[in-house]
């Protein structure tokens, strides 16, 4: 058994995208509270989204803003009070200040530590468990070996991102409004556009308050190794992506995981072609193999992960 999850930021994506490939959804864009209709900010959009997804048999995790200032804590509290009666399965937190608030308002709901929670060690996972953290997205810089070590030496579950643009940096201000001169609060159009940053061979994607890897993390060719390592919580980064991207990546990985799970033949070439068709700048393995994040290594050159 495995779980495949992703984020959906707001109602537009919920209604326009076929989410059938995903078992669970993280609701909201944790990078920017101003994102139109953001589930992380608006109980009015969150409530019907949870209802709709539950009727589809999905697990729902509320994703909270990653870098709240004191002034943000007011509306985050209001959101959580509004969410008390919703059948949420968990809350994603990137900020240690929110751990206590979630506990105070939502009781013992499972807390998931987000990627900007900066988890690097099993010792940190052990500490966070005492605050209600049941599941962690380790920092993207961890190798698979380190990630498995955390899983094996702490009482928390570890999520393994399989695909998509890696969140590399987050900011309290918006990169896009900074360089386009557009006024925040009127940024709906900006957020619907594709923003790319290039310098010689280097490439990044901007989604406003976060910069993502230009290349897509792709672990399709390593799925059998991941499954053999008893990893089963899988995730696809899709913030800032088109509906076609969310659907294609979800479908490919669901098919591939089912094949691997049933010891079937993995037709990697066909699936890789599909993933490349929605990729802007190619594929990489992120930091999983201990090299710089933008490299892609052939499975034939690597020894077993664990």
């Amino acid at each position, binding site marked *: 058994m495995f779980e495949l999850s992703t984020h959906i930021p707001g109602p537009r994506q919920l209604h326009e995208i076929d989410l059938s490939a995903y078992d669970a959804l993280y609701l909201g864009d944790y990078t920017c509270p101003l994102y139109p209709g953001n589930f992380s900010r608006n109980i009015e959009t969150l409530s019907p989204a949870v209802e709709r997804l539950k009727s589809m048999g999905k697990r729902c995790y509320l994703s909270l803003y990653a870098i709240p200032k004191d002034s943000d804590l007011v509306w985050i509290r209001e959101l959580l009070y509004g969410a008390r009666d919703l059948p949420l399965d968990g809350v994603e937190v990137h900020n240690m200040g929110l751990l206590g*608030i979630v506990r105070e308002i939502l009781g013992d709901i499972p807390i998931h530590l987000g990627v900007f929670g900066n988890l690097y060690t099993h*010792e940190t996972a052990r500490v966070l468990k005492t605050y209600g953290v049941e599941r962690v997205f380790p920092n993207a810089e961890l190798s698979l070996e380190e990630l498995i070590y955390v899983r094996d030496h702490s009482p928390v579950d570890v999520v393994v991102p399989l695909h998509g643009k890696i969140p590399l940096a987050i900011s309290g201000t918006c990169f896009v409004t*900074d360089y386009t001169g557009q006024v925040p609060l009127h940024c709906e159009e900006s957020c619907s556009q594709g923003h790319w940053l*290039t310098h010689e061979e280097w490439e990044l994607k901007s989604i406003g308050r976060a*910069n993502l890897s230009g290349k897509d993390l792709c672990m399709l060719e390593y799925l059998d190794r991941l499954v053999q390592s008893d990893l089963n919580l899988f995730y696809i980064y899709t913030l800032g992506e088109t509906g076609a991207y969310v659907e294609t990546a979800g479908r490919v990985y669901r098919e591939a995981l089912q094949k691997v799970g049933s010891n079937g033949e993995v037709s990697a070439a066909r699936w890789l072609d599909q993933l490349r068709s929605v990729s802007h700048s190619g594929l990489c393995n992120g930091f999983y193999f201990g090299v710089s*994040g933008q490299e892609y290594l052939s499975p034939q050159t690597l020894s077993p992960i664990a």
Partner: protein
Amino acid sequence: MTKLMAPGGTRRMAFSVLEAGADTVYVGVRGWSRRGSDTELTDAEVQDLCAAARAQGKHVRVVLNTMPSSTEVPLLLKKVDMYAGWGVTGFMISDIGSMVQVRSHFPDITIHVSVGAGLSNALEVKFYHELGASVVILPYRMGIEDVRAIKRSLDVGLEVFLFRTENLDGIVCPGKCTMSSYFSSNRWLDNEGKDYFYGSANRGGDCLRVCQVGWNATVDEHNLDGLIGLKGNPKLWLQELSDYIQAGVDYFKVPGRDRSDELVRDIVSFYRHVVDDLKCSPTDEVTARYDLELQELKKRWASERRKRDDRLVARAKG
């Protein structure tokens, strides 16, 4: 009483900032701080420095603020034990689990939560305080009102940088950026088994400042004019210094482990005079008297920063 904390990026810098009036000197040690080895001290140099600081009634802090691997935590504790034995009275740490382990094994040691922990609100300060932090280093995006609010509600030490971005929101949050290692990373182990993670801002080695190159921006295939940077450059500051002293800030931190020994010595000497004068007479007139001198230091600071950024970016491309 607000103390002045200054960097020791080299042995010479460490000794000279104590002479110039720093109350405490902070030093990185090979492989364990968020800088390259050329701005970190050897263990033998740390031991010498401890003896010199002790003779002057001053303190040494060791920066162990890389995000370690799980398997490196026991080595971190061993290092803390050794440095504490030499007279180091406190450590800067980013990793929560490591911090809790250090507190558990060394109940009397001073622990500063590094800016690498990436705090953003008062509840986070409370979280770290409950886990045993003695002092919390505030990121630039937290201003004087945050300091006052925290001091009203918590008995925790606060440390404030003497440089900051002009937009207090910051551009990239400290401790929340892995752009450098995405583009360039190199790993090696030293004799003790420490992984250097060169190229990672969080894990050690050097941040290779990829944010500082000129980036072309494209919006839906349309190129925008000009080149953009991805991170504001913090600058030395004076305004509101008096307010911070009165709000009860425990440490002012002079930056610059990777600047020249001479520049850092001059900055420390400068702020020593300013802080002492403000303690006698906390007025804007006092800070105004120092403004010209500040402008000169800012120019030297910016000039050295550009050279450093060029050097590091070249390494990233190499």
